[in-house]
């Protein structure tokens, strides 16, 4: 066996960088902290590539399954003999794949940010938080047990909170960061309940023993059933609730669009490529338990994913803030991944969906971070997020234009670009097991192509907007990451993914299913063509369409009023009928008791404090008269 102990350095280097730049960053020149952060991440990235090479190619015997490897593990908390919490590094195909995704995108975002954040206040703080996030995310994917994952899960939540609220002087950013934190935290409550239930049924936290097909989780046959789902099934549904919160799936999606208040590189890193796919990673991590232990829970995953992808795609067509369009598109694509996991089976070709989901995660990380960074370059040039302020930018921003177009082709699923291959595998997986979801995904594929090209044309074509000062192309430090990611968006589609990442570790051959692929290509092309027709030149048709379906349009434009619904539920119901009485109890009963104790102490000390006057003779008098009094008592009265 190859020694993988060095992999613990991959998360630890960003941690060291975080501590260093966080503590000493204000003393150095801003650019230095950016360079330190990028260098640290660069080393992590090189180590990750080396690990991937070692794991997938060098140490692997062809024809055998990829086995999980515990590179390092130490006992962190020994609560009782049986309840031990460990920290460690687990390498298996999905974690190694995630290492590559995270370090690559994070490195690109670091380099890009050196240019993008130039002149901002809190430059070193930004890089310190980016390193903290990279550390947490790497720790999350390398977790050997579900509890370690939960710890890092919360850490990524915190770093996301800190980065969304980076412009802490802007009230909307503060509100968005709070919203993101509270919503994901609420979802994590479900995750924690799920962990407790799961470890109660299986008596283990460890992923290897949890996911082993002969392990306690699957062998336990799920325990007693409640409302048609076994105990195991319920625990998985709760765990999925945590994943859905992090991945902005349907009922818990409301934080993601608001999270776009953060700096754009943050949106690219956290809210497109890495953190939001943590939910997908979680389900993929526990996939054997889902697939073999509780297929019903997997069906929940599939439907939530499918619905979210359609729901978000419709909203994305109506938004005008370019980052929000991308946010909804992220939600839609993550829905794809969830759905793909949901329709997958376990083992061999049955596990096509599992492979496709991870593949899509991989390709999506490249093209979506590229889209965000491209959008960042556009925002950098025109100082606005709104696509109505843009137009005709292709002449001013040639590199951004080309790379953005490549990413649009990739996400729309045009053949030859990475998104086509992974999306096709997802569609094939859906086609083989769940027809209703398959048709939903066909529709979503078309809508995706439509709204992406609506975005593209509105930014780069359409009207010749008159700008206050001529927009200029971003500096090379920003465009080079764009080009690298554009390269990745093309070539990652040609990786024979089914040879590396599969549900049971065994390689299988996945072919493009042309009977599925050709209609999907046609649908994508129709979507693109429609967008071209409507948005390439300024025309009145989009407004007419909006007028033709006024109610639906308004509904979608306001994101189906989900924010309002949540506000209603929280403000009018939870705050009024639960929080207010609880607050009253807290203020009057809990605080009252404590204040009463404090007041009593204060009163007592107030009344006896004159006793200690500092007057020597008073002390002497008290001492001597007490001695005499005691003498009298003991001699005469006893």
């Amino acid at each position, binding site marked *: 066996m190859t020694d993988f102990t060095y992999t613990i350095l991959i998360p630890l280097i960003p941690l060291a960088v975080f501590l260093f730049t966080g503590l000493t960053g204000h003393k150095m020149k801003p650019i230095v902290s950016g360079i330190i952060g990028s260098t640290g991440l660069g080393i992590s990235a090189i180590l990750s590539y080396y690990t991937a090479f070692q794991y997938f190619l060098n140490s692997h015997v062809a024809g055998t399954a990829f086995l999980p490897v515990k590179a390092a593990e130490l006992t962190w908390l020994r609560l009782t003999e049986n309840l031990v919490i460990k920290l460690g590094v687990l390498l298996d195909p999905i974690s190694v794949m995630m290492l590559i995704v995270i370090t690559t995108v994070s490195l690109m975002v670091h380099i890009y940010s050196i240019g993008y954040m130039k002149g901002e206040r809190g430059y070193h703080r930004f890089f310190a938080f980016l390193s903290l996030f990279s550390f947490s995310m790497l720790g999350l994917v390398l977790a050997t047990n579900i509890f370690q994952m939960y710890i890092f899960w919360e850490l990524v939540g915190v770093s996301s909170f800190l980065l969304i609220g980076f412009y802490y002087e802007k009230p909307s950013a503060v509100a968005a960061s709070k919203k993101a934190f509270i919503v994901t935290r609420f979802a994590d409550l479900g995750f924690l309940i799920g962990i407790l239930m799961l470890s109660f049924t299986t008596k283990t936290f460890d992923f290897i023993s949890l996911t082993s097909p002969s392990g306690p989780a699957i062998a336990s046959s799920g325990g007693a059933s409640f409302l048609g789902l076994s105990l195991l099934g319920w625990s998985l549904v709760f765990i999925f609730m945590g994943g859905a919160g992090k991945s902005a799936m349907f009922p818990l999606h409301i934080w993601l669009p608001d999270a776009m208040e953060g700096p754009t590189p943050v949106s690219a890193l956290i809210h497109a490529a890495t953190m939001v796919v943590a939910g997908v990673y979680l389900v993929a991590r526990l996939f054997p338990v889902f697939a073999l232990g509780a297929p019903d829970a997997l069906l929940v995953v599939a439907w939530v994913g499918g619905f979210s992808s359609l729901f978000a795609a419709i909203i994305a067509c109506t938004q005008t803030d370019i980052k929000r369009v991308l946010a909804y598109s992220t939600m839609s694509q993550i829905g794809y991944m969830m759905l793909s996991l949901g329709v997958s089976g376990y083992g061999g070709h049955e596990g096509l969906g599992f492979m496709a989901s991870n593949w899509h995660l991989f390709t999506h990380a490249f093209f979506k971070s590229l889209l965000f960074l491209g959008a960042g370059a556009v925002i950098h040039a025109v100082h606005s997020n709104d696509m109505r302020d843009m137009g005709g930018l292709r002449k001013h921003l040639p590199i951004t234009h080309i790379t953005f177009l490549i990413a649009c082709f990739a996400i729309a699923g045009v053949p030859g670009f990475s998104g086509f291959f992974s999306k096709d595998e997802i569609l094939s997986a859906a086609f083989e097991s769940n027809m209703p979801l398959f048709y939903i995904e066909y529709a979503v594929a078309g809508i995706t192509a439509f709204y992406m090209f609506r975005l593209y044309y509105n930014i780069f074509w359409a009207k010749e907007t008159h700008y206050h000062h001529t927009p200029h192309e971003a500096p090379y430090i920003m465009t080079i990451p764009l080009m690298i990611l554009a390269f990745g968006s093309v070539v990652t589609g040609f990786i024979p993914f089914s040879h590396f990442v599969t549900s049971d570790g065994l390689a299988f051959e996945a072919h493009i299913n042309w009977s599925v692929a050709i209609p999907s290509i046609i649908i994508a092309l129709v979507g693109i063509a429609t967008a071209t027709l409507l948005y390439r030149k300024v025309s009145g048709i989009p407004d007419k369409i909006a007028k033709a379906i006024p109610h639906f349009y308004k509904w979608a434009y306001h994101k189906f009023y989900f924010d309002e619904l949540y506000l209603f539920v929280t403000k009018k119901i939870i705050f009024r009928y639960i929080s207010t009485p609880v607050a009253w109890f807290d203020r009057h009963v809990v605080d009252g008791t404590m204040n009463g104790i404090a007041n009593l102490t204060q009163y007592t000390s107030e009344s006896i404090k004159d006793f200690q*006057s*500092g007057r*020597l*003779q008073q002390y*002497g008098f008290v001492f001597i008269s007490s001695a005499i009094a005691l003498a009298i008592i003991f001699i005469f009265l006893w």
Partner: protein
Amino acid sequence: MTEGIPLYYFLVVSTLMFFIGIFGFLTRKNLITMLMSIELILNSVNINFVVFNKYLYPQNLQGHFFSLIVIAVAAAEAAVGIAIIINIYRNFRSIEVDRVDQMKN
């Protein structure tokens, strides 16, 4: 030398000295006077030691020795006490005890 004087008389003298000392300690404001009062208290105790030894256990010498120790300690105590008083005087420009009622200036 002491024949014919009963023990009782000595005890009266030492008791008087003791309470004069206590009274001085509690009433006089001047620190040096207070120190002198403490000497009175100590000396009254010395008288007790010597007298009890002489009258009750003439064959032993512990009482005499103990009073010698007390005298030595009292001398040391007076030296330390006067040093403290000088420092107080430097800080407060006074050796009145009721002015000295705070740890900080």
